[in-house]
């Protein structure tokens, strides 16, 4: 109830008061439920307005969550830390088998073929930089983010929506437990660390299986030369930005999905629609973050 526009009179202590404001700002239900406008320009205006409201709501929610993470570091650690471990297991360890399979597929389908193609045109010396740009900088982090969004992000929307509709958020408030601290913070930290770790495994797996595929095609490249080229193409910026990018992916995917799960009361028939919207917005956010990091690479070069 603390997230309804209509419930603006509700106060919840400290950050929860801000949370109410964040959701109130982004209450787009009225616009979404309104009849179609008469002209295309009106429709465009409405879409733009909805987009800005959503950005504002998500931004406010992200800042509030960040504030709680910093301010309540160490508070109720016997509850929050096990919940963070649980979320790391869910958004990380539990997905390892799937990522192992995806790494193999990525290696066979993309890396192996690239190695083979470069060898045919005699451009094998560009292999390292190609692999770093394609797999380490772009494909690895984005693919990991999309897979976690699909597997765990949708579950976040459904779980939080159900918890809200069953009154669990009000029950937390009544017990003096901050819902952002208890429900959101573990998911955000778990997903950020989960995506970072899975991306590292995915990249290593894809590069290794890619060489395996190239080896089977008799590409004249020893494993030592292959990995030496990759290592030489990697700079400190690649490591730093890979970590930052994957953590940003995890943070914002968790924010988008948690926001949609908690922002409005969900009926059962709402869940699929809201989950789809959350996934779509998650994909858009990831692409925007990726674009931002490409700019950083370009600026550095």
């Amino acid at each position, binding site marked *: *109830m603390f997230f*309804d526009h*209509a*419930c*603006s*009179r*509700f*106060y*919840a*202590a*400290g*950050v929860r*008061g801000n949370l109410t404001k964040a959701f109130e700002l982004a209450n787009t239900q009225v616009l979404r439920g309104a009849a179609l406008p008469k002209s295309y320009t009106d429709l465009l205006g409405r879409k733009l307005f909805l987009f800005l409201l959503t950005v504002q709501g998500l931004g406010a929610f992200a800042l509030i969550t960040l504030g709680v993470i910093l301010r309540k570091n160490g508070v*109720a*650690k*016997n*509850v929050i830390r096990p919940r963070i471990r649980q979320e790391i297991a869910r958004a990380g360890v539990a997905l390892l088998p799937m990522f192992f399979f995806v790494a193999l597929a990525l290696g066979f389908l993309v890396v192996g073929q690239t190695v083979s193609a470069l060898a045919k045109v005699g451009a094998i010396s560009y292999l390292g930089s190609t692999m770093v740009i394609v797999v380490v900088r772009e494909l690895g982090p984005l693919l990991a983010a999309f897979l976690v969004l699909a597997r765990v992000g949708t579950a976040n929307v459904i779980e939080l929506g159900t*918890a809200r509709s*069953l*009154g*669990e958020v*009000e*029950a937390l*408030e*009544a*017990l*003096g*437990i*901050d819902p952002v601290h*208890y429900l959101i913070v573990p998911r955000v930290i778990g997903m950020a660390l989960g995506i970072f770790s899975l991306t590292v495994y995915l990249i290593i797996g894809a590069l290794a299986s890619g060489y395996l595929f190239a080896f089977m095609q008799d590409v004249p490249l020893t494993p030592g030369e292959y990995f030496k080229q990759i290592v030489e193409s990697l700079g400190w910026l690649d490591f730093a930005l890979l970590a930052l990018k994957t953590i940003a992916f995890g943070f914002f995917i968790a924010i988008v999905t948690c926001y949609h799960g908690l922002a409005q009361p969900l009926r059962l028939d709402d869940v699929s629609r809201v989950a789809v919207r959350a996934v779509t917005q998650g994909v858009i956010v990831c692409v925007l973050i990726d674009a931002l990091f490409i700019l950083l690479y370009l600026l550095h070069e």
Partner: protein
Amino acid sequence: MSENQDMPAIEMRGVNVAAMRDASFTVVENMNWLVAPGDLWVIAGQEHSGKTDLLMLAAGLMSPAAGDYELFGKDTKTFGEAELAERLRVGFVFQGGQLFNQLTIAENVALPLRYQKNFTPVEAAHEAQALMELLELSPLADVTPANVAANWRQRAALARALILKPEILLLDNPLAGLGARHLQWWLRFLDQLSRGHEFFGGRPLTIVASADDLRPWRNARRKFALLHDKKFIPLGGWNEVEAANDSIVKELLAVQLETTTR
């Protein structure tokens, strides 16, 4: 324990209560109410009369639309995170329990201890064990709420509200849908809490419960009030309730129903 026993536990002056789902809609207007420590109040009313909204306001979960509300002498308009200690002096039992479905009954009961006092699971379980036994919940300790009958879920919610040993206990329609055995248990236990249960060191709890049927609450010690037509009407004790000529009170006492049955 309250620092000042003479200070009212709850005091409302000219309070307007807004609806939970629509803050622009007022469900109770100009309400004046004073609850002394140790009182046991039963707030009766029909469906959608604002009982839950009033209890949520009393718990400090929402602010009054107008007027002054003081909890332990503190204005709840400024009741924030800094006043968490004051807030934890109030326990709230939701209708239906509203337990956390992913936790077991024992974990639900221990959660406030773990979060507020940073107890480890073992420490919290040890601390909660006595209360679980008192409320006959021990056999259900490792079961999740979805696998427990509604009667027991409600009782688990009571245990969760009592684990931090609050001074005020607010119960939203606690007797709704209970079987006869559970109903008797609840009435007896609430009376024990109101008089001062040894588990709480003999300190009488201030209790406010809402009800849509007054018959089970028949007792001279309890104070009654009615929510009707956006008004808060204090009725007095049970004798006054029985003597009341109000049609709504008669309906809540099911007098007409009994007359028709005869």
